[in-house]
């Protein structure tokens, strides 16, 4: 589904990604781990199309179609969803209105009519229950005054509403207590299916107890230096990142 080949990306001439190769197939969950500053969030942003990053070399494709020339909204219309590490506050626009706009813009791009209001309402009810989100929460301004946990839960709510082909969760576990983590993971797991894929970016093994990955990759200094199965995450938890860094320099 997602194919990244020899990807080099920089921001203001600072090289951040230095040759990433990654293949994610439908039905798979990939975890990307690594120390701070290794390029995890950059990789997520580059896949989603953030324009501040320059792609110097390499390709990213989704189902065989090159993404590099596509705007962030076009990538979203093709089914890519990025759950932000720091979701942005939009005062005056309610969660409900925001998600309606997002869904209908994607439908418009696919040549579909707006989703009928009753269907939208039903979907909102269903997905908010899944994420144990209070109805009152939905009429609040997007992310304004939300706690860290509320912001993350709201991100996963949006993901559940948009049913993306490829979901990228950037540090979704940061700032979550154990109950919120369980709820968020449950929401993510509901999306898992044979037709879509998930990339989980995390610093810690903790989230991976709930969202069990098929593959784990370790990013260091802009490159994937080690790949393995879920056992690799446990090993990292136990031994830290230093041995990986050493192995990489050797």
């Amino acid at each position: 589904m997602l194919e990244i080949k020899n990807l080099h990306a920089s921001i203001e001439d600072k090289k951040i990604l230095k040759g990433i190769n990654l293949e994610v197939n439908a039905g798979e969950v990939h975890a990307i781990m690594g120390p701070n500053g290794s390029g995890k969030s950059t990789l997520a942003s580059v896949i989603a199309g953030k324009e501040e990053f320059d792609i110097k070399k390499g390709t990213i494709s989704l189902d065989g179609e090159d993404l590099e020339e596509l705007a962030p909204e076009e990538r979203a219309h093709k089914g890519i969803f990025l759950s932000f590490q720091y979701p942005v506050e939009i005062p005056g626009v309610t969660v409900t209105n925001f998600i309606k706009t997002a869904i209908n813009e994607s439908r418009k791009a696919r040549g579909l009519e707006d989703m009928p209001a009753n269907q939208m309402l039903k979907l909102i009810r269903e997905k908010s229950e899944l994420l144990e989100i209070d109805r009152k929460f939905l009429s609040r301004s997007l992310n304004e005054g939300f706690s860290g946990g509320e912001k993350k839960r709201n991100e996963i709510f949006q993901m559940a509403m948009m049913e993306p082909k490829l979901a990228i969760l950037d540090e979704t576990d940061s700032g979550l207590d154990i109950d919120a983590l369980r709820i968020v993971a449950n929401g993510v797991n509901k999306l898992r299916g044979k037709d879509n894929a998930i990339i989980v970016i995390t610093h810690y093994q903790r989230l991976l107890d709930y969202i069990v990955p098929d593959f784990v990759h370790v990013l260091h200094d802009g490159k994937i230096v080690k790949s393995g199965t879920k056992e690799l995450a446990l090993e990292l938890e136990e031994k830290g990142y230093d041995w990986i860094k050493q192995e990489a320099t050797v």
Partner: protein
Amino acid sequence: MDLKDKLLSSFLAFENNVDLENPVHEIRSEAIKNFEEKGFPSKKEEAWKYTSLNSLQKVDFSIFPKQENTLEYKDIKKYFLHEIDTYKIVFVDGVYSSYLSETTHDGVDVCLMSSAFTKPMFRQVIDVYFNQVASKDESLTTLNTAFCKEGAYIYIPKNKMPKKPIQILHLATGNEAALMLQPRNLVVVEENAEVQIIERHQSLTENEVFTNSVTEIFAAKDANVDYYKVQNDANTASLVDNTYISQKDNSVVRVHTFSFGGKLIRNNLNFYQNGERIDSTLKGVTILGEKQHVDHHTLVHHAQPNCESHQDYKGIFGEKSTGVFNGKIIVDKIAQKTNAFQQNNNILISDKATINTKPQLEIFADDVKCSHGCTIGQLDDEALFYLRSRGIPKKEATALMMYAFANNVLESVRIPEVKTRINKIIANKLGVRVGFEL
């Protein structure tokens, strides 16, 4: 003949049509002397550094419109806040239109300055309040005072509140090639009384209009006043709005100024706090494009202890538009425990747009809380990326962000229909339709 000379010679003709024995005429005569001496303000004056009236002075404006015009309500309905029932005071080319208006004397007076100036029953109020807070040396204010004859007169007695909000609408038909209007309004809200007023100036054609308006507002003890100014006029219409507000103990006055259109707008908004525990609120949303120009000059004079003022102006400037914000706060030595807040945030969405913003604080008391801040920026790229990553196209995402930026100014709007109307104008102005009503 330039505009000043024309106005001075017109004053003689004006005197033929008013009662020279009326005490108001003494005030007019004094005022015209001041204007004759000072003339129009020039860019050499600090307060007019960024706003030039030069081009307006070259236009051959008609000072007295020749005829009363009749307009059909259906043709101008959209300029009214017609979603709710209101009293209406409507002027067409400066002349009162009884056909389009709905005034009242039922417990409160919602009527005309021309009546107030001439009828004995209003004499006492005129004697006590008229021209008491308006400046006697600011040249444009005195020019208006010299020619004062018509406008809205609103008197709310003690403990009263009109049954509905009041709309003041000034329409220009374009029957004159170029028209100068000088409405004069007086709003007196007595002890524990309340009023809500919506004011709009609208030119119906491309013919040039220059309005020099003066409004005096008196809020007595415990009075509550909401004043909404909707400035969304044609690109050939210019407005100098001089508003003077005098507040007594415990009164609350909120003025919201929504500036979306017009060729040149200058708002001189002056609050004078003459009592304790007064609350003054000044809020504004300005969204400009083309070569539009809006200049907000605010003054809050804290003259007594324990009072508050809240200023929040947001501006979005596109194309070649220019904006000015100059916010002056004076805190007298005796005005201890003053809380004065001022905020002016601006977004420039074009390389050719300009904003000049300047806080001006003169604080003579030592136990006060005064804060001010002004920002000039572009839209936040991270936020824009967030919205686009959800599938919202750049243009709509930009509009949503601008809406969000201006939105908190609307929170203090207390008439829901005004808020809805302003939201619609903002959506139109930004040129997008998002999937829900903003």
